[in-house]
């Protein structure tokens, strides 16, 4: 039987609708389920929960282990964001605006952190930090996470800088601006949204980091992802649902902000 074009079009449309719905459900269902389960009031894990309430969130913010882990993660993530910016921004200027020999090598090398498998990276990092006596230290964690977050900052700021014409800085200088004023007021100002976007990405990357910490963390250095792993080892603690929900909300907000900032550079 041959279908008329109209019927065939309708089938295609319905198939498309079903596919999109399934894809959306696949993406969103775990998120929604986690969020819903985080409002369970049971001291154990069960689906569906027997009672509802804010018990998990209370535990998260009052229990010393969880609070300490949250604070440590923040204390690592923020310096990581700053350090990545401090290293990446001069680097992208060297890559795009200088006649430095080997600047392309610098560019590709800077992205190595993304390409190398993270467990291999972690093993190597273990060796390096051990040599410098930084194993199991706060400084060591900040450094390791910076190495991981730096490529993201590099990618974002490098793409943004390549879209800022050199002529803008030159135009500012002819018009009377000193080199410094032209650089800060025009080029760096136009790069700022990308820097903020890169900062957020770096912070999120560091905050979510759950592989390195197992190699180079140590006693008294329990980040939030580490605390989740530890608690899962002893059985499923429903607090994880609250942690995960908060992480998702915070990450989403930051990512949306980052995208918004990064996009505003395009204009």
């Amino acid at each position, binding site marked *: 039987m041959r279908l008329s074009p109209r019927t065939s079009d309708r089938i295609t449309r319905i198939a498309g609708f079903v596919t999109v719905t399934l894809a959306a459900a696949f993406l969103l269902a775990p998120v929604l389920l986690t969020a819903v389960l985080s409002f369970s009031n049971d001291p154990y894990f069960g689906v569906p929960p027997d009672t509802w309430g804010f018990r998990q969130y209370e535990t998260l913010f009052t229990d010393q282990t969880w609070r300490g882990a949250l604070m440590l993660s923040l204390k690592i993530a923020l310096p990581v964001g700053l350090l990545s910016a401090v290293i990446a921004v001069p680097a992208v200027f060297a890559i795009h605006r200088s006649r430095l020999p080997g600047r392309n090598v610098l560019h590709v090398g800077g992205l190595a952190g993304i390409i190398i498998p993270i467990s291999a990276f972690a093993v190597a990092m273990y060796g390096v930090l051990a040599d410098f006596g930084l194993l199991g230290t706060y400084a060591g964690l900040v450094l390791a996470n910076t190495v991981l977050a730096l490529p993201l900052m590099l990618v974002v700021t490098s793409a943004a800088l390549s879209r800022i014409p050199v*002529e803008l800085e*030159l135009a500012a*200088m*002819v*018009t*009377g601006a000193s*080199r410094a004023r032209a650089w800060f007021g*025009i080029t760096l100002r*136009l790069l700022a949204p990308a820097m903020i976007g890169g900062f957020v990405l770096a912070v999120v990357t560091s905050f979510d980091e759950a592989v390195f910490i197992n190699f180079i963390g140590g006693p008294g250095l329990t980040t939030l992802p580490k605390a989740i792993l530890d608690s899962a080892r002893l059985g499923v603690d429903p607090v994880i649902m609250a942690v995960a929900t908060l992480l998702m909300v915070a990450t989403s907000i930051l990512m949306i902000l980052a995208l918004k900032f990064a996009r505003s550079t395009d*204009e």
Partner: protein
Amino acid sequence: MTVSDEQIPAASVPTGEGRAGTNGRGAALELRDVSKHFGSTVALAEANLSVRPGEFLTLLGPSGSGKTTMLRLIVGFEAPTSGQILLRGSDISHMSPAERDIGMVFQQYALFPHMTVADNIAYGLKIRRWPAAERKHKVEEMLELIRLPGFGDRYPRQLSGGQQQRVALARALAYDPALILMDEPLGALDRTLRLQMEEEIRRLHRKLNATVIYVTHDQQEALALSDRIAIMRDGRIVALGTPEELYYRPGNSFVASFFANANLLPVDGHERRAADTAWVHCAGQELEVPAVGGGGEPAVLSVRRRSLRLGPADGLRLDGTVEETLLFGDEREVVMDVEGIGRVVAVLDARDSGEVRVGEPITLYAPAADTLLVPEI
């Protein structure tokens, strides 16, 4: 910029010699033996140039001819290897761009995307610490001048290419610099817009009496805008003069072909008769033609496309075969192959040239007075 009566009248009628400026009221800009080397490459070789106040001077040349290098030296993006650049009499060769009191318009507009049109125009004024009220007033005045009143609050991305370039002009003009540089400012615009902007630039130049150095590779633009044109090749100025001089009496073969699109016909021999005429042997004929140059060097006969015609004339006669014809409305371009000479291009009146057909023989004439013997370079 207020056009006051005290300002020096525009030097819209350049002297026939086309190299004044050092006499009388002095040059706005002067280049003395300015060279720029990049490693072993000579980008600009001992350039000498004097631009009069209020003059519109164009640097014209193919890419790589050194015109952009010269512009970058004048504005201060590069330092000269040797020589001096003087602006209103003071040596600016090694000053930073900010100190030079120059305004510049770039090919890609280079407007600051994060600032409004008004803030872009006011940028130079803010750096010069104009009070806010005066800045605002000046911006309004400039917006009127570039015919974009009420556009102050918009962002550059909300404007068309032509409008953006007008804002860039206003930004460069607002602080009344001693010199305006324009680096192929119409290069990014389409043809119709280009013609409108040429008009606009001419109008602004007339009105403000600004000294302008304009860089382009488009000889039509140079013809339409310039008081004088410096034609450049391989890092050297090979000709300097008014559009009329360069078009009708080019000083050498490069200017004749590049600027006037003239045909360059080989001559079998030439001999000077007077200071500005010569006997030449060309295409099997003996002719007395106007001549430029010293007379001793190798020379070619320059014949402009429009000098050739179908009707017999007292002068050069060319017999050949039509290779191609192209109709441009009122005119018809005819490409012919002449034995012993090669390709010759003529532009004929379209109404008279209806019988011209590809592959058929054709005879064209050029009055001797309409040809010119030029030194070959």
